[in-house]
């Protein structure tokens, strides 16, 4: 257990217990390890991308207890006791999540480097605002950077996914 006042207590490593993409994991991590490095380097979940390493671009977003966070800018030990979802945990049995499908349908990515973060951000957005208006979509999506698309097709994908998840569209 980590102590809130002194989370690492002078240790060089700490134990970590988390739910990762639905599975219980018990890990030992160096105290200075970032959450992004834990996911990418230690667990080889490389769908979490490193863009700016400064918590600005959002390529490294994962959902921690359902909230989109920049994993490059948090420590791995902060994940203790949390439920973490990465892009690898989204499709089930070869079936794309409706958000992923909407990104495919709308051509909402080019180089693909921002896509993991954008897809997870969209999933979180639609959980909070099932049918967001365009202003809400733009406000949320503006926490991540896409240098390729000019955002129009991403916004269209969010709208499509919202409609589909709300059951307003069958295809």
């Amino acid at each position, binding site marked *: 257990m980590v102590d809130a006042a002194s989370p690492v207590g002078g240790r060089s490593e700490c134990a970590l217990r988390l739910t990762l993409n639905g599975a219980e994991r018990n890990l030992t991590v160096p105290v*200075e390890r970032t959450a992004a490095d834990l996911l*990418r380097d230690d667990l080889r*979940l*490389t*769908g*979490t*991308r*490193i*863009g*700016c*390493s*400064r918590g*600005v*671009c959002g*390529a490294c977003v994962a959902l921690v207890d359902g909230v989109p966070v920049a994993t490059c800018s948090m420590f791995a030990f902060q994940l203790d006791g949390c439920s973490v979802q*990465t*892009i*690898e945990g*989204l*499709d089930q049995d070869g079936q*794309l999540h409706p958000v*992923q499908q909407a*990104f*495919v*349908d*709308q*051509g909402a*990515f*080019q*180089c*693909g*480097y*921002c*896509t*993991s973060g954008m*897809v997870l951000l969209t999933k979180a957005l639609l959980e909070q605002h099932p049918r967001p208006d365009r202003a809400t*979509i*733009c*406000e949320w*999506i*503006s926490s991540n*950077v*896409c*240098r*390729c*698309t*000019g*955002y*129009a*097709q*991403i*916004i269209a994908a969010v709208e499509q996914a919202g409609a589909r998840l709300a059951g307003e569209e069958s295809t």
Partner: protein
Amino acid sequence: MKPPTVAPAQLRDRPAATPPLKVVGHSPPRKDALEKVTGRAVYSTDIVLPGMLHAKVLRSARAHARIVSIDAAAARQAPGVHVVVTGADLPAHIMPFYGYFIKDQPIVALDKVRYIGDIVCAVAAQTEAAAIAALRLVRVHYEDLPVAANIEQALADDARALFDDAPMGVVPAYGDGASAQLRPRKNVCYQFNYRTGDAAAFARCDHVFEDEFRFSRMTHYHLEPFVSVADARGDTMQVWASCQNPFPLRKELARMFKWPENRITVQVPFVGGGFGAKNNVKTEAVSVLLSMLTGRPVRFCLTMEEGFLTNTQHAAILRLKTGVMADGRLVARQSEILLDAGAYSDGSPLVAEKAGYRIPGPYRWEHIDTACLCVMTNTAPAGPFRGFGGTQTSWASESQIDMIARRLGIDPYVLRMRNLLHLGDPFVPGESGIDSDLRQGLDVVCEEIGYHRRTHDPRSTLRRGMGIAIGFKDGGGVNKPAQARVKVSTSGDVFLQCGTVEIGQGARTALSQITAEILGVPLDKVAYAPINTDYLPFDQGTNASSGIAVMGQAVERAARGVRDQVLAFAASQLGVEAGALQLGNGVVLHAGKPHPLAPMVMRHYGGTGFEFSADGFFKAASDHHAPLEAPCVFWEIAWGAAEVEVDTATGQVKVVKLVASGDAGRAINPVMLKGQEDGAAIMGLSQALFEHMIYDDQGRLLNADPLTYRVPLAEDLPHDFVTITQEQGHGPGPFGAKGAGEGTILPIASAVANAIHDAVGVRITCLPITPVRVLEALINQQINQESVP
């Protein structure tokens, strides 16, 4: 002036009745869609090799300084360190400099540093953290030198030269009217000139207007950093690189390290954006050198902050002198374009060539005289950037065209319509014909935005106006050969092998669609081979919007070649004429009856089967009458229109509506193409309004980090943002396609500036168009109006 010649091959009329296409012109999901939305796509950042070390470099904090000494002894002893390389440690047998036309950039600094960010020494260690810790122990003793932080400072009489001696460089062959010089003067590494017609034309003009424009520089901001992994143990060199041009990279590494090209393998997984930055050597020389010295694989991955210091767009000063008749007829243009090349030449000479060449824009002239200089400054090296000089020239030229129209009291639309080249007119003597109907294209955006119905309300403090502009560049690259191979297996599966890198533009999908269409197979029957220089036919690089117009032609030829082979073989097996056969849905068709390939192949070649294989090649034919030695493959044209609302109290400009339209000739995949046009237009809008690298006069980059460097976000989209794909059908590529991907960045900044002039009557000639600049211009306008009785 000799009569213009039209190269008919450059102008393909759309067939009156196009047979229905099954794959091309449709928008199936991208071939990389599943990998990218599930996170499984592998980029160079993901490559890990056993025993791999990590590189980091010490970067200069001085803009210009002589290196007196470097003490790296403590760093060499630091935990986890395998090697530290300073200029003094470079192996004697290698050529430590790289560049495009001019080899002036050292792997690590030898005698001096030339910009803040210049590489001073490199470390390979067990981890990145160990490498960074070791670099903190390196002590460098500098002797500061005077700094030339911008174009004016570098060209001043008393400026300190960045290079005392001339670096090794070449000037390529040029055709009629074009020429270039290396180091024509101090701190100018390259000058390109183009001249046609008679300068006496100026004397006949009713008006001659001289205007100066300034263009600010952006950083590429590709989300995947510059990264490479090199394994140069033993006698082979393997490189995984986030790279746009693997074959030229192989050639450059072979030259630098004196290795045979056939023992160097460059592999390029998915590339997470480049926008021009990832051409030629970036991280690769360091990772290769450190791998050679340590006998271990080495990964060198830059941070985004380091990316800002590695390659940028060109800031520029453009001075245009344009002679016109009173009725608005354009006659003559003389221009001087000064590009800020930064501290090393990188792609600057090529950009100068293009900027100098593109300054006439898509208009008819009697006389053109242009000089474009690459000015060396103590700032980050500038290089290829989406638009490649055309962004700078479209900004200046389309601004001035608008200014001239307003000075003459002619609507800017009318002045453009009077002077635009016609479909098929050569751009300049010896060039290929313009392959878009420029007037038709302009009408498309004017109609969408309602340009001819615009109204002005001079009483409001929120004033609206509209501006239009035409972006223009020659597309497809100069002297760009492309090769492709298409193979068909016994079971009818198709292999497409070519060197075009999937950088986001959709090359894998679009080139596979062309192949599938020609071979009559569904798209999922075509597989696009991974990029590996050992197995693929040669390609010069993924740049210049060349994927469809240049490589597409090679792919088209390869696909037709292998189709002909399959049909000839089937004809011999079936005892019929090949002309009586067709391919459809993966089988050979004769008189409507399907004949599967596999039984015929195995009957003839045996049970193990066979692969049919054909190569395709394309290169624009050399022609000395063409100024750049080969006629342009296609003309990348984009029309832009903006409606702005200017707050006269604050200078704030709101783009209410933005319309951008390119002519794709034929859209291979309309959804992917729209994404390219959207993205380029928003990059142009960002450049117009806020995005720029801010250098002070000491060579310090003031917004050198992702938090303070502002890129466009979804919230920055105009309320009404429309891109329109035109398919005029005159392109040289497969099915009438032209290239695409850069066009719509070109007209945006000038369309916005022209709209502001339309709204409030002030002209902004300096990018970005910040509220401060607009307010300053409005205040000056008011002072001038009050002082004139």
